[in-house]
């Protein structure tokens, strides 16, 4: 084992700063404060003993189980060799950049009203086929819309319906009771602290009864929609659905997932619809291509989850579960996501088909980590989610 040679003029402090930078490059959270603590720690041990230094720095710099396991290799690669630098590449983007730009775009998806390329699916009860101008038929036509497979939905009215359902779901999810109690005018519990305080003014008689209750805490939604090749037929309706979710609450975030993960919340919020479509199509370079659910969930965990997923978050995944990544990756990443305390809901359009079994290996790997696995092939099935989501 060779020890790294540092330039002679470099002080311990400089070397330590270099080590911190090395840790940061490899994904550990090591900042100024850690550097200081590390130097303090060296003072508390025999700094000439390599093993002691290793153990000490490990307890200072590894902030989690992952860092704890990776630390020994990182330590060796900095102090005990030269040359070996980054153990882990920054991401999978380099590989993806070389993928050819897919031709289909969201603009085509959103603008084509006749459903070019969208297979026509007959309605379940055939009512959608009958043409007529009477009110009754119109009503049953709406009924039929809600029950027909989403693949057949193409007109603006149908998309508007999808948006409305999404808004309703977003509303039902939003408020969840907190377990902590806050002062309130009405409530089940007396707030003794404030009663005692106020009663001083009345010579010790508790005249005013103040109360506490559990306030409603907003729940925020993060929706991840799969728009890979196998999902193309559903993509337009799901985009409308996302639009509904996003417009119902400013805290909601939406992502598209194909070979890459794209954040589309801002684009969906654009008040200028045409510009929104323009922006979406710019973002959707891999639209309709292959799927990398596992890798994208990983990207989501690495990049976004820290800031937007907490115990009061519901993560909605809209996907059929056909994945080109190894299924263990999906399972592992979902488990990682769940550790943040959020609820995970998977909406699978295929589940509504009779005789569907979650045999897609990715789907099977995901199942144990889901709080709710539901069908999403008709608007009715989306609307039926509401009571389930409220319970969570």
């Amino acid at each position, binding site marked *: 084992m060779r020890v790294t040679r540092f330039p002679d003029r470099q002080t311990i402090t400089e070397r330590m700063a270099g080590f911190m930078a090395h840790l940061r490059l490899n994904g550990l959270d090591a900042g100024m404060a850690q550097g200081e603590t590390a130097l303090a720690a060296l003072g508390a*041990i025999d700094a000439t003993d390599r093993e*002691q230094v290793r153990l000490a720095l490990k307890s200072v710099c590894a902030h989690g189980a992952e*860092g704890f396991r990776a630390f020994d290799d990182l330590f060796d690669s900095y102090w005990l060799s030269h040359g070996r630098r980054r153990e882990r590449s920054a991401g999978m983007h380099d590989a993806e950049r070389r993928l050819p730009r897919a031709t289909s775009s969201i603009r085509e998806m959103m603008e084509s009203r006749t459903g070019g390329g969208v297979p026509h699916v007959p309605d379940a009860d055939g009512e959608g086929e009958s043409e007529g101008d009477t009110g009754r038929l119109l009503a049953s036509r709406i009924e039929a819309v809600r029950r027909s497979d989403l693949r057949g939905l193409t007109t603006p009215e149908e998309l508007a319906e999808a948006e409305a359902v999404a808004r309703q779901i977003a509303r039902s999810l939003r408020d969840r009771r907190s377990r902590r109690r806050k002062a309130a005018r009405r409530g089940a519990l007396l707030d003794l602290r404030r009663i005692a305080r106020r009663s001083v003014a009345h010579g010790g008689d508790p005249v005013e009864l103040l109360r506490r209750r559990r306030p409603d805490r907003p729940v925020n939604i993060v929706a991840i929609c799969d728009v890979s090749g196998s999902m193309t037929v559903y993509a337009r309706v799901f985009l409308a659905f996302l639009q509904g979710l996003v417009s119902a609450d400013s805290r909601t975030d939406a992502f598209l997932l194909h070979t890459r993960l794209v954040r589309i919340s801002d684009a969906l919020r654009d008040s200028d619809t045409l510009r929104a479509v323009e922006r979406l199509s710019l973002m959707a370079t891999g639209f309709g291509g292959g799927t990398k659910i596992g890798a994208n969930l990983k990207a989501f965990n690495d990049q976004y989850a820290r800031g937007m997923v907490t115990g009061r978050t519901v993560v909605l995944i809209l996907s059929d579960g056909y994945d080109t990544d190894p299924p263990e990756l999906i399972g592992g990443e979902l488990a990682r996501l769940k550790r943040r305390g959020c609820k995970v809901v998977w909406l699978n359009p295929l589940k509504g088909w009779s005789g569907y079994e979650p045999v897609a290996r990715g789907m099977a790997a995901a199942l144990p980590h889901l709080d709710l696995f539901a069908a999403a092939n008709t608007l009715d099935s989306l609307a039926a989610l509401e009571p389930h989501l409220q319970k969570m």
Partner: protein
Amino acid sequence: MSWKTLKDDLANHGYVASDDLAMALHLAVTIGKPLLLEGAAGVGKTQLAKTLAELFDTRLIRLQCYEGLDAASAIYEWNYQRQLLAIRAATESGAPGENIEDRIFSEKYLLARPLLEAIRQDKAPVLLLDEVDRADEEFEAYLLELLSDFQVTIPELGTITAQTRPHVILTSNGTRDLSDALRRRCLYSYVDYPDRATELAILASHKPGLEARLCEQIVGVVQALRREDLEKKPGVAEMLDWAAAIAGLGINDLAADPVELQATLVCLLKTQADRAAVPLEVQQRLVGKAA
């Protein structure tokens, strides 16, 4: 005191720590930082705090965290009943109002909860914040303040600053990820299930009377069980319970009576599914390998 002595001292008090853990604890004590311990349930995270308190011959102050834990039950609360009584008594004797207020917001009427208790000790106590991951994020924010300044502000009384810095140990089972801010302020150690040699040492220090061969068998079976696909893997505490049960039943060889042994597995397997996953045949295979 070097970390090796600390490790030996812990061992003398019946806690066999790995090198990682001993070093992390040594640093936590010498440079005065909180120590965050993560790991599966039953690997001895809480026990470490207890042993440390014993070793330093000081108080162990423990705060069990749960969802909804708030400042009133973690830091301090006024004793309202007594306050109301005092106010009533004072009005009847006709004392002026200002005096009452001074009196009822004094130390006498203050109920110190674990965190306030911990910073008011003359001798630095061990403060154990158990299962921090169960408390909600707002509570973590309180903790950050306390852990950086070791002081508590009570509006009616003023700021109480720690007389001695408590040795803080936080444990987490990973039900949710802790905030990065909290992690950054702590030293960290991941406590894993002990390896064979360590577990043998643990067993020997707790049950010195057991035969060496039986110890080997017990540890062998428990280690093998942890490699099985179980919902809840047996921890160190379960292993010790099991050893006690075996000693109590007077079993000298695990392979001697499989049926009786199967009955003792209640000490190790705590769910219906796990019981079903280890039927008699599997148990015999595990014992056979361990023997």
